[in-house]
């Protein structure tokens, strides 16, 4: 049965508590910071999509120059605080820490980054001063990581930025699409306010491209437009029964959880989650933590090919989620319009596909899982209709760009998930920086 309010207030609090708690004390941060070897041309910097000077910011913690430390982080990544909570650091900075090669615990870079950035945010330190106003105005569509990062860099350079956001809050997937035990809605709001605190950035909420804002209007009112609309539509399974009550998109499910309060979000007794990416893990663990009795994750390939990291998989396993490898949904079965079971095809790995991964092939064997809810987390697709209508060159909805962010329409730039099809928050932040750079170049050329 799908129902809400399964747990007590205390249970919800515990289940959605910070999964990676911060350093409790300055001493604890110091001990960890002092472990850092201060590598030269450090692997961790190269592994960070935004190239944060990690050894420098850690060294600055050891000298008690926390303001300097936070500045070092924000200089490369204005969402350094959020990234410290949501980045899959095990495959980025921490995964490349040289301590791994000594078979030692890598430096807890994310935790140290959180220490400096949260200290800066808590103290309201605005560490950047805007350059003299250039008189230029740029419109940004989407207040997610790419849009905010682009806006902050433009604001720093003396450009006025108006961001148009379809939701009621900024932060994009950070606010609406990530497991609640990683970032709280309050933190996301604080982070947006901290970023816009530099001045010169306004956000207009509930402005949706194609509904109440249009590209031509923005082009006429602004010197340039940055498109950072992300991806939105959950990939459909295209199997019978997909419209039954109890079939949900993972992003919608997490969105409701993030915006509506935990006890208001209904969840089934027995939940199947389709997919094995980060969002699938988030959806599965959140369903379990909302009180689902049984959560089963299905992935059509094996652990070798899964898109999530080992750390994420471990979280799901520790939460008690069951994992079935080489299993693809074949049909969702229902009674009276409601999900009652999931018919699953057993798969085997065949020859490598275009992505280089071995492609799953149906063995013909099937089994049925007794479930009352199915969460689809098989990836998201880009806003193909929207961008095609706007005459933006694209590839299945992914906006085509030259030099990282220049679209086919002069004065229109794009970056983040709407270009790359969906990557990490930290990739979007870098895309925003690249976009701002291209826009500044364009604005200067216009003089």
């Amino acid at each position, binding site marked *: 049965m799908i129902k809400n309010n399964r747990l007590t207030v205390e249970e919800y609090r515990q289940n959605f508590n910070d999964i990676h708690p911060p350093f409790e004390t300055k001493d604890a941060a110091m001990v960890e910071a*002092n472990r850092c070897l201060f590598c*030269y*041309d450090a*692997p961790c910097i*190269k592994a960070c999509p935004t190239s944060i000077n990690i050894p420098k910011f850690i060294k600055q913690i050891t000298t008690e120059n926390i303001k300097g430390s936070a500045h070092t982080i924000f200089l490369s990544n204005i969402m350094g605080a959020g990234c410290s909570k949501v980045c899959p650091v095990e495959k980025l900075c921490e995964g*490349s820490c040289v*301590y791994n*090669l*000594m078979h030692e615990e890598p430096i807890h870079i994310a935790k140290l980054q959180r220490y400096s950035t949260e200290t800066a945010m808590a103290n309201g330190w605005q560490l950047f001063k805007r350059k003299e106003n250039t008189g230029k105005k740029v419109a940004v569509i989407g207040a997610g990581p790419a849009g905010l990062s682009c806006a902050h860099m433009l604001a720093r350079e003396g450009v006025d930025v108006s961001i148009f956001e379809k939701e009621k809050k900024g932060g994009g997937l950070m606010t609406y699409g990530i497991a609640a035990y990683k970032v709280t809605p309050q933190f996301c709001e604080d982070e947006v306010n901290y970023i816009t605190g530099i001045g010169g950035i306004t956000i207009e909420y509930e402005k949706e491209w194609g509904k109440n804002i249009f590209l031509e209007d923005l082009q006429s009112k602004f010197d340039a437009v940055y498109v950072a609309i992300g991806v939105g539509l959950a990939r459909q399974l295209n199997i019978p029964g997909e419209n039954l009550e109890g079939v949900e998109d993972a992003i919608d499910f997490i969105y409701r959880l993030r915006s509506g309060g935990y006890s208001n979000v209904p969840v089934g007794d027995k939940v199947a989650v389709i997919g094995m990416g980060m969002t699938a893990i988030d959806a599965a663990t959140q369903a379990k933590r909302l009180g689902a009795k049984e959560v089963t994750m299905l992935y059509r390939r094996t652990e070798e090919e899964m898109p999530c990291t080992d750390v994420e998989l471990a979280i799901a396993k520790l939460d008690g989620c069951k994992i079935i490898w080489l299993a693809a949904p074949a049909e969702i079965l229902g009674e009276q319009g409601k999900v009652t079971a999931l018919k699953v095809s057993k798969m085997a790995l065949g020859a490598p596909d275009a992505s280089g991964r071995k492609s799953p092939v149906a063995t013909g064997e099937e089994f049925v899982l007794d479930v009352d809810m199915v969460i689809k987390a098989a990836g998201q697709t880009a806003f193909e209709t929207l961008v095609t209508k706007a005459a933006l060159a694209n590839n299945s909805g992914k906006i085509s760009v030259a030099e990282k962010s220049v679209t086919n329409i002069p004065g229109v730039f794009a970056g983040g998930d709407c270009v790359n099809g969906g990557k990490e928050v930290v990739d979007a932040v870098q895309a925003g920086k690249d976009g701002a750079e291209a826009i500044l170049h364009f604005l200067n050329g216009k003089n």
Partner: protein
Amino acid sequence: MADISSNFLGIKSPNPFWLASAPPTDKKINVLRAFEAGWGGVVWKTLGSQVKNVSSRYSAVNYGGHKVMGFNNIELISDRPLNINLKEIEECIKLFPDRAMVVSLMADNDKKSWHELIKKVEQTGAHGFELNFGCPHGMTERGMGAAVGQDPDIARMVVEWVMEAATIPVITKLTPNVHSVVPTGKAVVEAGTNGLSLINTIQSVTGVDLNTLVPNPYVGGKSVFGGYCGPAVKPIALKFLTTIAQNATTKKVPISGIGGVSNWKDAVEFMLLGATNVQVCTAAMTHGFRIVEDMCEGMSNWMDEKGFKTTTDFIGKSVDTITHWEDLDINYHHIANINQDKCVHCGLCYIACEDTSHQSIQLQYGKPYNTYSIKEEECVGCNLCQLVCPVDNCITMQEHRVAPEYINWKMWQAEGLPLNDH
């Protein structure tokens, strides 16, 4: 099992580890705890005329997340009444007759005061005296401590007074607050001291508080120079020790080594450079008396490995390896080698060499890991890369002699060999 027992001027102790004259040896309760923990002996905190202390008394230098790399103090000699000290010394000797009990003295600067103090202390049954000619703060202003040790003539005079009265061995403790400890060392040996100990603490300012802008240790808005000690001073102590161990006059008497001794390895190093035993203070003050356990076990294991049966087998063994620069072999050359299997690609060797040495390391870019290798023809063999490498035995120095024969600077000059090899 090696025999680590020690005999210093006939004063026997089960091991060569004494606690130096300092706060840990100020009271019976501390000294008994030290003996129970296993310390071989103590030098009781300096007795003299009545003084008064201030607070705070200590400050420290921390480094790289480690506390108390260096330590300083502005405490004076014992501020407890003399008769209490004497009574407690006697009691400690009775309770632990196998341990060394040496008493540090600093009398007022006249013969009569010294003679009276010596007489009183000898009645306790103490095994020896240590003359405090080194305390760099508080007492110097009164013409005592380092004020005596810094002037060889005054030091000679005081030792002569002491030797007239003392019937037990006398050790003179030297101050490092001089350009060389040898002049005072020679003077006091000539005046008859039976042994020497060094170093006392070094005048210092450990740092300035960046909020109050007042240096440490803080005493009501002011500070004074304090005596520096702890691990940070060990290299300075070893240097002074070596000069005493090498001088023809001073090397005739046994030396008690002091200055940053924190573990058995430090102790062995002091003894290799001529100390018969060592005295410890800061390490005990920062970790308690229990550190002596590993000092004994570590030294004993090392002696077994090296085949030394008693401490006298290795005392002074390294003294002659410290020579003059002009006697070093110019044809000796070694070159760094990076073991690629052990390298963790931290780049610390590269940046140290590139920025501050001889640009002898090759960086081959990789993402995320660069590869580093030695440019053998450029390497001068300075050791910097090896010193900064975080991996044990990853960078080794490999011998590549320039020529087989020994040639030093004096010979080089005499033969008129070319100087500029760049």
